[in-house]
């Protein structure tokens, strides 16, 4: 993949970009290598070479040279109303397209406003390339205006980071950043760009291969280990597949389905893995974990062979580790060796790409083993104990709203959520038949993620319905991004499940703190309809099923954005539930 001799590569004439990449060579400007470019122009040219279609950015003093180079450059620039909005939008874009989201912010506060998004992308393995302006090199360290030690602040929440000290190294740094962000386990890479570097001139060359001896991700899995796994399948009595977001990153959903169908092993998805296996498939047991299905959690508890493709055994999935898959031989396929054995002891570790591993396994596994009873038992559990809620005429149920969204969009929308109860209901009651249709903040659990992520998702897939299912708490954290929805006329259907509370916090206080609702209720609510209208977005309020169904369909029939406030029952809780500290076998609120 990489070769030596990076240094030897002298500036050569640049080759024309091959093929019909979507790179917007809008003005037909092809920069010639003998020409000197400013650092800012280099940045723009590098983005072209990388085929970047959209840039999420917010200007400021330290990036003025970059913004000057961006002026009428042909790359689409989306202006959020807060830098956090820019980076969550880039995450939504990356989640839906699989391509890196690109972000630009100024120094100091611009950069620190990105920290939450960086941490979020780091936890959920989303490829981002993030540029931050920096004060001029001469004044770095003097507490200059809008100076912050961005490298120091962001180091723990980035896959890698650079501060550019010479304009000549900028093209190679950008090339490396895109390579690192998108290969191996994807993640955010940050480039800190001092203002004088973006003004300084140098020769642009982008041909030298990326040479990183300290970064050589193992893609090709060990075949002997996979043979061991195949042998374990043949002798297993209670096997189960756990499929995480690694399946989506590896674009291995088809291979996974083939493997599950070939071996007849049922599949559990993690929250972030939803869509990696068809939600309507016979062998699908549902999401596992704290608010997972009884069947999925029962399978994870009772299994004797747990095959994990690209999930990191997050605590919300495993529950109390002392009770997790205790009788199981554990096989863990992961592109990141550090995940293997981190939380759960592993018997068959396989480092590599999930897709490559599945290809080998499809060669090694001829058919199902001897576990038909186990499978039919699990499918009975799936049938008898589905996600459920009590339907009555006491008010609009949030679960019903999600089901109705699923019906109205034929299960084919991109669903973007914020964090909390509504997020779990979306995960439970919307069936994702296809990959990359569910955009949610899993690891970091970032409130305020939903609306900007929906903006990025819609830009990444302009022709698909994007339903932003939000809670009233999280929505208010990044509500200003409605301006972006309106400005670019993004046809996002914003659906606010308003329970006038931080519902998940309130639920925990009800269940574990004897109902002491300490600062989790939001009695004062804005008029969401007027709020939408203030941004020239049509707003609707619904309080019952009939009007909800009608308004939803009306909204979906319209070409533009809509905000629908659903006044849902505030006391509704997310069930079933594995209480914190409990094992997956100790679920409460299972369907009677």
């Amino acid at each position, binding site marked *: 993949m990489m070769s030596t001799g990076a240094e030897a590569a002298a500036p050569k004439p640049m080759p024309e970009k091959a093929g019909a990449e979507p790179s917007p060579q809008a003005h037909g400007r092809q920069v010639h290598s003998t020409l000197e470019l400013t650092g800012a122009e280099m940045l723009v040219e590098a983005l072209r070479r990388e085929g970047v279609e959209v840039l999420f950015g917010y200007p400021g003093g330290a990036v003025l040279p970059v913004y000057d180079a961006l002026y009428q450059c042909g790359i689409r620039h989306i202006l959020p109303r807060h830098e956090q909005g820019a980076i969550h939008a880039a995450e939504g874009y990356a989640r839906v397209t699989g391509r890196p989201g690109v972000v630009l912010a100024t120094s100091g506060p611009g950069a620190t406003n990105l920290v939450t998004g960086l941490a979020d992308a780091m936890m959920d393995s989303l490829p981002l390339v993030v540029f931050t302006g920096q004060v001029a090199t001469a004044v770095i360290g003097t507490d200059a205006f809008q100076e912050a030690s961005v*490298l*120091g602040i962001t*180091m*723990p929440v980035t896959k890698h980071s650079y501060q550019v*000290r010479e304009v000549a190294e900028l093209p190679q740094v950008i090339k490396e950043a895109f390579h690192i962000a998108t290969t191996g386990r994807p993640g955010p890479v940050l480039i800190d760009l001092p203002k004088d570097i973006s003004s300084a001139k140098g020769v642009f060359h982008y041909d030298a291969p990326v040479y990183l001896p*300290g*970064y050589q991700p193992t893609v090709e899995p060990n075949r002997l280990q996979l043979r061991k796994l195949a042998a374990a399948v043949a002798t297993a009595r209670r096997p189960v597949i756990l499929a995480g977001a690694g399946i989506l990153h590896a674009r291995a959903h088809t291979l996974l389905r083939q493997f599950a169908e070939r071996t007849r092993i049922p599949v559990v998805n993690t929250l972030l893995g939803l869509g990696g296996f068809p939600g309507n498939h016979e062998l699908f047991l549902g999401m596992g974990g704290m608010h997972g299905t009884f069947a999925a959690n029962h399978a994870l508890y009772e299994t004797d062979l747990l095959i994990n493709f690209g999930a990191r055994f997050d605590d919300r999935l495993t529950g109390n580790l002392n009770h997790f898959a205790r009788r199981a031989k554990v096989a863990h396929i992961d592109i990141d060796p*550090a995940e293997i054995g981190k939380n759960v002891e592993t018997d068959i570790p396989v480092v590599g790409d999930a897709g490559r591993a599945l290809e080998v396994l499809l060669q090694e596994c001829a058919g199902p083993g001897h576990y038909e009873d186990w499978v039919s038992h699990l499918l009975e559990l799936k049938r008898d104990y589905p996600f459920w809620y009590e339907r009555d005429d006491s008010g609009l149920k949030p679960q019903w709203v999600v089901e109705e969204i699923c019906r109205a969009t034929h299960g084919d929308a991109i669903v973007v959520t914020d964090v909390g109860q509504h997020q779990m209901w979306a995960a439970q009651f919307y069936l994702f038949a296809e990959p990359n249709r569910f955009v949610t903040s899993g690891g970091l659990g970032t409130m305020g993620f939903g609306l900007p992520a929906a903006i990025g998702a819609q830009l990444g897939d302009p022709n698909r319905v994007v339903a932003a299912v939000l809670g009233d708490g999280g929505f208010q954290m990044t509500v200003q991004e409605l301006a972006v929805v309106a400005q670019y006329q993004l046809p996002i259907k914003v659906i606010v499940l308003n329970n006038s509370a931080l519902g998940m916090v309130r639920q925990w206080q009800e269940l574990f703190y004897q109902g002491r609702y300490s600062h989790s209720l939001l009695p004062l609510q804005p008029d969401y309809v007027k709020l939408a209208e203030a941004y020239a977005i049509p707003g609707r309020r619904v309080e019952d099923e009939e009007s909800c169904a009608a308004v939803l369909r009306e909204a979906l029939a319209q070409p533009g954005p809509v905000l629908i406030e659903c006044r849902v029952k505030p006391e509704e809780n997310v069930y079933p539930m594995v209480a914190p500290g409990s094992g997956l076998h100790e679920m409460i609120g299972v369907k009677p």
Partner: protein
Amino acid sequence: MNARILNVVVNNRTGVLNRITGLFLKRGFNIQSLTVSPSEVDGQSRMTIVLATGDERIVEQVIKQLSKQIDVLKVQDITDQPIVARELVLIRVHSPISTRAELTSLIEPFRASVIDVGRDSVTIEATGKPEKIDALLALLRPYGIKELARTGLTSMTRDSETVQEIARLAKSNALWV
């Protein structure tokens, strides 16, 4: 405690030490000592990290997390390998003229030397394995240690030929079963 010694080769880039220590902070790992210096290769540094734990899973995690860093080129747990490991110590000891001769003869078997002399104190330099340094300190403590500076461990694996020779000798002299 069952300390582990890691030999880490890193790119000598801005922030690399921060990356390593930040990682220990983030993951809640404890360092007993850490030394960094340029290595034999231009642009690369060698770190010797002594972990304050022998817990296998933690050590494995530390190694994997270190290896994930793009600027980390190589990580080796060399604790159980044939290695040479040394640290240097500087000790200022309370020492009126009356005890000075005694002190000098006391430190001699340690191949330690007096590198600075004052009216009431002497400064002693010693190099060796941490156990030897600990032993020297134990001997000097009754005199009154006024100041102490230890570098922490630095180390490398032994020459492979030497290692083979040691193994061969051990076999041929295997009378002592």
